[in-house]
């Protein structure tokens, strides 16, 4: 970490810490809201993985795009989505990004370059390739980052998307968030190889293993991949090694993971590591607390905003099934 830290100024590091804290505070609060029955279905917390999204998105321009997953709140926050509109969405209110019609697993914010969270775990990989090709057709040099997990890496669509992205030389970056578990299936049972990044060679593009709990390493690895893509040199697979500290989801609390394993990863907490780096630079503990408090305050404001937002009512359920067209002026079901 030391090497990549050298040229980064303290203000930038503090900003990265604040972003990671925003994710963690949001997820912790979401888990509470779930217990209070304000969130239906489930939420899939990103706790312990914050450095992946924050690091990766720190390498992007505002006009770059991302695709995301069911475990997508971290991606959204790192991409700059509003905590308020996210919180309203996950409790199903009209001020949510999707007017309460998508929910946690389908948050979309097209103006922020967030193409939409996908509950089909690798389902967006081909979408990312197509979006990347489409951007180039439109004369843009924007890139698309596609997030997916170790479990998702076994889905066929990902294989097809990687191969298609390679032959098209699409400006896409595939980021595999290897948190070692797909609900109860350890990655060692899902694949015989240790590094999912090794698969990239099979498609003819680079695969890079990265410490997913090192926000600067993630930023550097992603920046390199983004530069490759932007220059027209095609995809890269960045594998971020990480771990989710919480169980798979709020609704599925059963956890087969050992306390030893959990503890070993708590020792490598991405927020604690960045905080330690800042401390080494002479940043006061009170300043670090300030950043944490600021994040929690933002989340509290977001919850207030969300709770004050109206619930959608019929006939909204029949709206936006379609875009308005010659045969349908109001987008309602046909």
């Amino acid at each position, binding site marked *: 970490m030391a090497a990549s830290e050298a040229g980064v100024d303290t203000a930038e590091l503090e900003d990265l810490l604040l972003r990671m804290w925003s994710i963690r505070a949001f997820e912790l609060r979401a888990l509470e809201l779930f217990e209070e029955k304000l969130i239906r279905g489930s939420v899939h917390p990103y706790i312990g993985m914050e450095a992946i999204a924050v690091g990766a998105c720190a390498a992007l321009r505002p006009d770059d795009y991302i695709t995301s997953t069911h475990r997508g709140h971290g991606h959204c926050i790192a991409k700059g989505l509003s905590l308020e509109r996210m919180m309203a969405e996950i409790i199903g209110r009209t001020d949510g990004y999707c007017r309460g019609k998508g929910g946690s697993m389908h948050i979309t914010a*097209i103006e922020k370059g967030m193409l939409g969270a996908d509950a089909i775990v690798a389902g967006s990989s*081909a979408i990312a390739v*197509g979006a990347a090709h489409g951007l180039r*057709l439109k004369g843009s040099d924007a890139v698309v980052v596609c997030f997916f997990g170790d479990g998702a890496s076994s889905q066929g669509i990902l294989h097809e998307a990687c*191969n298609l992205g390679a032959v098209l030389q699409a400006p896409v970056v595939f980021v595999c968030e290897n948190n070692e578990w797909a609900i109860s299936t350890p990655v060692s049972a899902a694949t015989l190889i240790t590094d999912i990044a090794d698969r990239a060679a099979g498609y003819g593009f680079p695969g890079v293993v990265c410490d997913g709990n090192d926000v600067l390493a993630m930023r550097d690895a992603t920046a390199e991949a983004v530069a490759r893509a932007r220059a027209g040199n095609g995809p890269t697979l960045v594998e971020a090694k990480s771990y989710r500290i919480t169980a798979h989801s709020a609704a599925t609390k059963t956890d087969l993971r050992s306390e030893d394993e959990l503890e070993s990863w708590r020792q490598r907490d991405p927020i604690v590591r960045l905080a330690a780096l800042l401390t080494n630079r002479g940043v006061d503990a009170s300043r670090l607390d300030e950043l944490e408090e600021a994040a929690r305050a933002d989340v509290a404001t977001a919850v207030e905003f969300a709770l004050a937002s109206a619930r959608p009512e019929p006939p909204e359920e029949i709206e936006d*099934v*379609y875009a308005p067209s010659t*045969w349908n002026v109001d987008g309602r079901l046909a």
Partner: protein
Amino acid sequence: MSDRELTMSQALNEALHEEMERDAGVFVVGEDIAQLGGLFQVTTGLLERFGPRRVIDAPISEAAQAGAGVGAALVGCRPVIELQISDFVTLTMDQIVNHAAKWRYMSGGQVSVPMVLRSAVSSGIGMAAQHSQTLEAWFVHAPGLVVVMPSTPFDAKGLLKSAIREDNPVVFLEKRLLYSRLGNVPEGDYTVPIGVADVKRAGTDVTVVTYAHGVHLALQAARQLAREGIELEVVDVRTLRPLDLETILESVRKTGHLIVVTEGARTGSVASEIVARVVESAWDALRSPPARITAKDTPIPYATALERAVLPQVDDVVSAVHEIFQPTTMGDD
């Protein structure tokens, strides 16, 4: 606009040339569509004119082709994805049904998915079970999709242009046996509206609702039955979803009798859906039970006589009409 005759594949090809010229965001993806111009010549000449970024020979990855179409559509392009044989839609179902059809709704209306998935229905020519299905019912069943199946070169060109300009995802199925069929296609830019049926033959005695190949079966049956003094009205819906129920009901109220002809398998067919809607809305106008003429509920066999026995034929339409006026199955004599 002057008159001339084109085949359906020529008509579709013209539609693609014109729309790709008109809008730089339109591009085509599929297998063997670029260098070869497509197995059925629907994409002939596009590569030379528009280049390899807009005319893409894809690897055999139907799911990724469809998904890439969704992605490109989300950023403002209008992709036209060709699946070589329509049975391969099974490989794209997740991207079309879980993604294309739902992305607008799940996003609360932020985005639309203006893509076209077009494919060749290859039934009736001995292509066997995995290359001969007629699967539009699966897409008619998915809210958020538009489903179109033209029966003539004129309709094919006009509807493909509309489908490309349409802001919703369109599944556009073409009957392969009709690719070589000639029909009048005027010069110049024209479109055929989505969601509007066309009465291909006016008549007073029986309403036959159908589309694609069924239109030609119905018209042949109509010629035969006209010699017996029975006049069929053939309603070509052209768009299966959204369905132009009004035109169908107008016809049924006039004739009092309904036959629906589709090539898909019987159970859960689009014919079933059309019958249900007509019965719900015009029960009082019906003077005989509606009839569905569909493929049998079997996979499509290879041997000629067996394939013929599974797929709807002209005789089936004629028999169904006879059954209306001289019923053999209800009561004695």
